């Protein structure tokens, strides 16, 4: 369990463990320790608040990669109904680092009426799953599957939501052989061009071109503790600073947090995370994402397809 805590989260472990112990004790029904639990929980929450008040870019980068952080399929499970995953690029294979499918999303009235296509990067939870998902690093086939689904969504006038969470597109032999560059370029082209609303949300790691391929929405939002950058702090430290110990410094220079990028007007909004990060309360994190989707699609749906396409072109020609 201790492995699932980041270094700066460690002070929280002791209190978390005590609370767990008391809860088990409570179940035995011998003595009522409810008050004691409440006390400790308040103490823990204050501690988390204090820790998160002074959280830096490097800590946020670590949170964006937290081993317990919810991934695309976790959010899909919590906010959608009747999700039907579609597979394959019809050219070579099915890339499991990218998932996509149509579903209904719970709207403001509590009903499931809003149809969407969700396409996102997918990381794995355990070792086997991580390998299967290639650590969320797509091959060209993942991007080509996405292009195929984007065009299907356009055909049915269904809005597109992309969830971004990748260290980057995979730098491997087969990926190069089968045209990783072309796959990314064409995905950007396709997503800019579709005549439906596109909402892009960075939910974890927004790593370089592999992230941008899904990032050209009419609106681009970030979860509070996600990051978005042209290169990882580690890569930046090693290439530009020629010193891997400068990783934290690089994370500051790159201005990669939601707050930084909102300040630079690169993103349109920040979706708040629960106290301590999305992994502390997946249900609440999911609901915040759901609300953001409903609100933004509600706004974008007022426009016709051609206007939405031109809006994206205009938006990205302004950088």
């Amino acid at each position: 369990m201790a492995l699932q805590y980041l270094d700066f989260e460690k002070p929280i472990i002791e209190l978390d463990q005590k609370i767990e112990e008391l809860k088990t004790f409570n179940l035995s029904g011998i003595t009522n320790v409810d008050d004691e639990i409440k006390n400790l929980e308040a103490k823990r929450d204050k501690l988390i608040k204090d820790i998160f008040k002074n959280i830096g870019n490097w800590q946020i980068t670590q949170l964006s990669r937290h081993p317990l952080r919810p991934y695309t399929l976790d959010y899909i499970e919590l906010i959608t109904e009747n999700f039907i995953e579609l597979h394959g690029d019809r050219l070579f294979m099915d890339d499991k680092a990218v998932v996509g499918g149509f579903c209904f999303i719970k709207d403001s009235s509590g009903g499931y009426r809003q149809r969407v296509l969700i396409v996102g990067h997918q990381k794995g939870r355990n070792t086997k799953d991580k390998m299967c998902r290639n650590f969320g690093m797509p091959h060209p086939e993942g991007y080509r599957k996405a292009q195929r689904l984007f065009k299907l969504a356009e055909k049915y006038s269904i809005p597109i939501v992309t969830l971004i969470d990748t260290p980057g597109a995979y730098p491997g032999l087969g990926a190069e052989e089968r045209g990783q560059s072309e796959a990314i370029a064409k995905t950007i082209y396709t997503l800019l061009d579709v005549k439906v609303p596109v909402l892009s949300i960075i939910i974890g790691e927004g790593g370089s071109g592999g992230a941008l391929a899904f990032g050209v929405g009419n609106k681009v939002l970030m979860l509070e503790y996600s990051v978005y950058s042209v290169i990882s702090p580690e890569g930046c430290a090693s290439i530009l600073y020629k010193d891997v110990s400068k990783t934290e410094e690089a994370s500051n220079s790159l201005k990669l947090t939601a707050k930084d990028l909102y300040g630079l007007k690169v993103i349109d909004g920040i979706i708040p995370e629960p106290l301590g990060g999305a992994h502390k309360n997946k249900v609440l994190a999911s609901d915040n994402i759901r609300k953001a989707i409903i609100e933004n699609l509600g706004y974008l749906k007022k426009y016709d397809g051609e206007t939405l396409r031109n809006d994206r072109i205009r938006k990205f020609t302004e950088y």
Partner: protein
Amino acid sequence: MLLFKSKNGKKEQGKLAIPEGLWIKCPSCSEIIYKKELERNLEVCPKCNYHFRINADRRIDIIFDEGSFKRLFEDIMPQDLLDFTDTKKYKDRLKEDSKKTGLTDAVISGEGTIDKIRVAATLFDFNFMGGSMGRVVGEKIAKTFEYAIQKKLPVIIFSSSGGARMQEGIFSLMQMAKTVAFVSEFKKVSLPYISVVTDPTTGGVSASFASLGDVIIAEPKALIGFAGPRVIEKTIHQSLPEGFQRSEYLLEHGMIDMIVERKDIKNTLKNLLLLLVNE
């Protein structure tokens, strides 16, 4: 081993006796080439056909009709929006490379004629911060497309770039979206966009407009790819096959249309334009 007579007439081993500035060693076959001869041969090794990297000005000389190229958008200057410092200040790097190359940033854009056919063009210069793409490069490419739409001209972009300019952080990443957006806009006019990729073209440049040409032409043996070979080797823990990510490899895998030698590029472009531009 190559032997030649040095200026003072003494026979010496080539490697030790290259008089500064007059001779150059081919990095591919190690032939010692007289610089004037290399220039006459368009910076291509006469022995092994190795294409030396050339700067944007030199490429303009080779491609465009003499005196026809007019530079455009020269007033777009780089900015240090993130106040970025690594081992050096970004501002200082810009100054140094500007002094070194005589350029304001890593591309020259403009209009010229190729065998009397008018085209809008952007040419990368690898000597300016490795041809990296920041906001000036993105903006000049955007303006090139915009200008071509207005004037109804074909577009040719000659790439040579290590990818995104990391010192501009997220703004360099956004140039990928920006340039692709203009490729998309350019389809409004039914005119050719030709992408010429030269050594090296990788990262954010390769993964955006450079891979979206109606026709993609590469110089022989140019390194073209998304990730650099060293990054790939580090990731997969194995050495890469001979010729991997070179033009010939990309042609074989269907990623480019053709490989054209430097001496033939002007003629190939002319012929393509004659076919694709409807008068």
